[in-house]
């Protein structure tokens, strides 16, 4: 079939960065007690790969993302972006959170311009803001304030705010988790299209198995807290993927089994 032939043609553009997570363990101190969150996580992600992290609620997925973003440093182990150790946040690794967290006092345009402004390059790079707003289809809302936007639009602005920095690694922390199912399906396709076009490495946290299977090259299944890698599943299907694909349905059954939910199948 036509779809099959494009599968062979997928090559990752050089824009994405390689991400190495080596022996990472992390813990939180809560009321004097130490709560282990991540237990010796090892993960190598190739440039341009789309990796989904699946795991039970509260298992430490989001903590792993915060470590990748550089918002926190791990207790042990190391994370490297293109062989350079991650020690703090950097605009080459941008996070889109579950809540859009747009700045309510800034217009859509100013929200998207945030990264360029923070890096002090906005004056010469204004066209990038316009271009990325065009890309997510919100050019006509450039002067709107966040409270005037719907949930899906706000999340698209958050995505634009990340993409304007031309990230090498896009970190998505359940970005579609709070959207209604129709908006969600539409934005999943948009996300795949953007990723294919831009070629950044993508790390997506989700607890929606179907979403992971429709979007990612690889699905990593994590265990209960403290999170360890339980399974590393390659999804060898071309894009755009069909939700009713029996191959994906079989994978879904397998993954639900790993998450201890086989009875629901």
């Amino acid at each position: 079939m036509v779809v099959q032939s494009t599968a062979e043609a997928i090559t990752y553009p050089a824009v994405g960065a390689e991400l190495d997570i080596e022996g990472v363990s992390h813990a939180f101190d809560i009321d004097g007690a130490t709560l282990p969150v991540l237990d010796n996580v090892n993960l190598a992600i190739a440039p341009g790969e789309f990796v989904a992290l699946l795991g039970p609620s509260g298992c430490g997925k989001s903590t792993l993302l915060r470590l990748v973003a550089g918002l926190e440093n791990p207790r042990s182990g190391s994370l490297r972006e293109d062989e350079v150790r991650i020690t703090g946040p950097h605009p080459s690794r941008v996070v889109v959170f579950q809540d859009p967290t747009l700045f309510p006092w800034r217009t859509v345009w100013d929200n998207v311009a945030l990264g360029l402004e923070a890096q002090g390059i906005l004056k010469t790079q204004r066209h990038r803001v316009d271009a990325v707003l065009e890309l997510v289809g919100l050019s006509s809302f450039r002067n709107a304030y966040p409270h005037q936007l719907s949930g899906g639009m706000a999340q698209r602005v958050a995505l634009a705010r990340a993409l304007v920095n031309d990230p090498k690694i896009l970190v998505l922390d359940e970005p579609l988790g709070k959207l209604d199912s129709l908006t969600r399906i539409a934005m999943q396709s948009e996300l795949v299209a953007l990723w294919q076009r831009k070629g950044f490495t993508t790390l997506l946290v989700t607890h929606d198995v179907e979403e992971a299977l429709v979007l990612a090259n690889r699905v990593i299944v994590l265990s209960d807290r403290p999170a360890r890698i339980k399974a590393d599943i390659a999804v060898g299907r071309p894009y755009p993927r069909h939700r009713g694909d029996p191959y994906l349905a079989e994978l879904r059954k397998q993954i639900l089994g790993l998450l201890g939910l086989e009875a629901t199948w």
Partner: protein
Amino acid sequence: MSTYSVSDTTAAAAPRAAVTFSNLSGSYGVGLAASLAWLAFGASCLYWPDVGDWSRTSSLGIGAIVIAVFILFGTLSADYLGSAGQALRKRAPWLLAFGALVTLWEVATAKFAWLPLPFFPPPQSILEVYTDDLPRLLDSVFASIKLQLGGYIIGATVGFVTGVSIGWSQKIGYWVHPVLRFIGPLPATAWLPIAFFTFPSSWSASTFLIALATGFPVTVLTWSGVASVSSAYYDVARTLGAKPSFLVLKVAIPAALPHVFVGLFMGLGSSFAVLVVAEMIGVKAGLGWYLQWAQGWAAYANMYAALIVMSLLCSGAITLLFRTRDHLLVWQKGVVKW
């Protein structure tokens, strides 16, 4: 689709039609009544003789009749006057009430002395103050504005900077917080006797006190505003490459601004109180001083005149502050109202 648009238009049209209809039946009536009330005020000035000796009675009466004529023509031609006509229509009930009130006031004081006389001066004696004692009154107004503005700006600036500092830095908070806790709640007027001794001039002492009265609420609210900024905003800004200075200036401060304005509003109120007390006790200028001076001469009309000016100034300052807030916090429309 068509159902939607039909119901939409009828919903929008109905209240508009209702307003127009009530305007046709009501607004002319109220406007004409307001005109009559002012005519009555003018006539009451001119018709009965004064019980006392006031020089501005006839000018006041003529002025009131001129106002009545303006209201009359304004009401009749409101449809052709654009926004001014609309504004007149909206305020017609107030014009009516105010006209009735001054008529009653005129009759009760200058004409039949139902109210004891030196303590309740008639409208024309207050007009007399504004015409005959204008230079002194203006001097007082300028002195008050100068003192208030200086103290308020200093207090608001220092309070804002202090609030941001202790909201941002725990180390600064450690030192400033107890001091604030101890000194802040003390009413600024309690410092008056000491301040007038220790400061080189009564003017600098009053400036200090006004700044103190303004500074405390501004500090506390700026601080709580900065401290309550969601950490998610900082996370977002940091992953986008923001440096600490950006986090303070472009994240913490704009997010705290609604709180800051509550502080500025509270500071304005308490600084007015300090201003008047300081002028009554130590400073030899300003509206507070004018009030005190008028009382000394039993010049009751001057006291009322000064009170009216003072209230106009205070409400003007608060209006100005609200306008500034609305301008800076447009983004809040539909989010919060207070």
